[in-house]
């Protein structure tokens, strides 16, 4: 059974790390979709859990490539060179105060207006590369829209769960019930 944990908000982390561990112990290999892997740097996942970064997908769209070059790479390289010892700090401040806010508030909405599918590209790429899942475990509010898009993407409608014991069999901890097999 393929289980995808959607954890794009990264605000119910203990549930994600512990419940994926439970699944691994039951012999499964769950996939966890997060927005940025760096937000989870301090969290320990069980071996066998695959962490996928949504922000790293769908980046082959030419306007995004151009933005990355003009708004991020070039200024950062310039700051790093001109800033000397303070270069690293300047780059981080630029990213925090200018780069990311501009990307989020100006460019992303702009892409959304100009190319209707722009916002969906990362998720579409995820869907294309990772294929169908039997169950989507939604773990935080920010993951609901992504879960909705993934659930609607194919002919096969995955089951939706909010805690892992909805997927593991009742009263028999750790054992997986395949609902389709039971049906």
């Amino acid at each position, binding site marked *: 059974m393929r289980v995808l944990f959607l954890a794009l908000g990264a605000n119910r982390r203990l549930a994600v790390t512990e419940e994926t561990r439970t699944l691994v112990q039951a012999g499964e290999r769950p996939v966890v979709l997060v927005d940025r892997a760096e937000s989870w740097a301090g969290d320990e996942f069980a071996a066998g859990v695959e962490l996928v970064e949504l922000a790293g997908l769908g980046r082959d769209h030419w306007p995004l490539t151009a933005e990355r070059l003009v708004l991020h790479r070039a200024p950062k390289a310039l700051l790093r060179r001109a800033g000397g010892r303070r270069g690293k700090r300047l780059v981080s401040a630029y990213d925090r105060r200018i780069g990311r806010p501009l990307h989020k508030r100006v460019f992303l909405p702009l892409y959304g207006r100009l190319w209707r599918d722009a916002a969906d590209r990362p998720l579409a790429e995820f869907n294309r590369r990772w294929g169908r899942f039997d169950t989507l475990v939604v773990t935080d509010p920010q993951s*609901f829209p992504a879960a*909705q898009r993934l659930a609607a993407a194919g002919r096969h409608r995955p089951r939706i769960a909010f805690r892992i014991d*909805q997927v593991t069999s009742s*009263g028999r901890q750790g054992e997986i019930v395949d609902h389709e097999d039971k049906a």
Partner: protein
Amino acid sequence: MSGPVAVVTPWYPSTQLPFRGAFVQAMTEATAPGTESFTVYHCDSWVARLSPEQDARIAEAFRALMPSATAPSRTVGGADLVTVPVPMPRALPFAEQARRAAESLKVALGGQPIAADVVHAHVGLLGGLPALRNMRPGSRLFVTEHATFLDRMLAEPDGHAGYAEVLGACEAFFVVGDELREQLATAFPEHAGKLRPIANPIDFATPRAEPVKSLHRWLFVGGLIERKGVSWLLEAFAVCRRQEPDLTLTLVGEGELRGRLGERAAELGVADAVTFAGALSPVEALALMREHDVLVHPSRYETFGVVVIEAAAAGMPVIVTRCGGPEQTLAGIETDAGQLIAIEDDSAAIVAGYEQLRDRFPGGMDLERARRTLADRYGYQAVAHQHHDAWFSPQSRP
């Protein structure tokens, strides 16, 4: 017995928050057996920093997804557990939180009313209002209040109004502890007749392997927050350990003080004797109680103080502040169970409480008598009987 019974609650133990709502779980374990069917609807607040646009998008996606939600999971006592996420932005007023919980529950139920004749809500507004909004006509509503933030809830006009609506509609309103009861009777004198005392059920089934022989291994179980008095506990522990280097302290729980407590333990030179066990499930916490010698619970305010009774059930003495609940729950067995101390803004009362208990231990106390008395008051059987009597007895019907 009869049924079906539904419970609507904002709190129930989950992987994310293993302690929250442990008493609702205990109540389920105590009361579900013997009923025709028993379903717990856990309206779980998922709070996040959200813009209004995000909030709206999430609400739309939630409505679209809920019909595909998997079957309920199984929980204690053979009950079903339906998890209903309630996505919401931060810092909403209580009435709005309750409204959202009611709306999410409605979506989860597919617009149908709760299929139960008896609906028992936990937490007056946050569980009561969602239950009331989703009950079928003719169902009977019962409520248990445990919230420690009742004053803040009632201070909001909409919160007060929502609460009054729940109180007006329910058949009986159970209150954990006299302090809460007085607070509610003052705020809603017209409904004072509906208020009934009730206890959180405690599991007395598992005895301790070996009786406590010394008071060396201290244990604290609860949130690492100011209200629990945990900073004073650490100071008191350092003072006592200067005289008795064998003492250890285990802190079970998480909270905003975690970092500061670690630093302070190092400053006091007791870091090697203090263990931060983190948040544990109620089962794990109970197991730890059977491996420790004394529970120190210096809380500033408790409506009931379930952990104090759990410690007594685990056969360990307690040092506990007179913080509302414990002086009532331990009434008549104070010295048998341990030592009640005053709430003070320093560590002196905890140190003195420990010294008094240590000096009379093991004499001057009767842990077995305390355990038996508390089992009669708060054991599963006692609490189940109280609930079943209210839900099913013909005399209890209006």
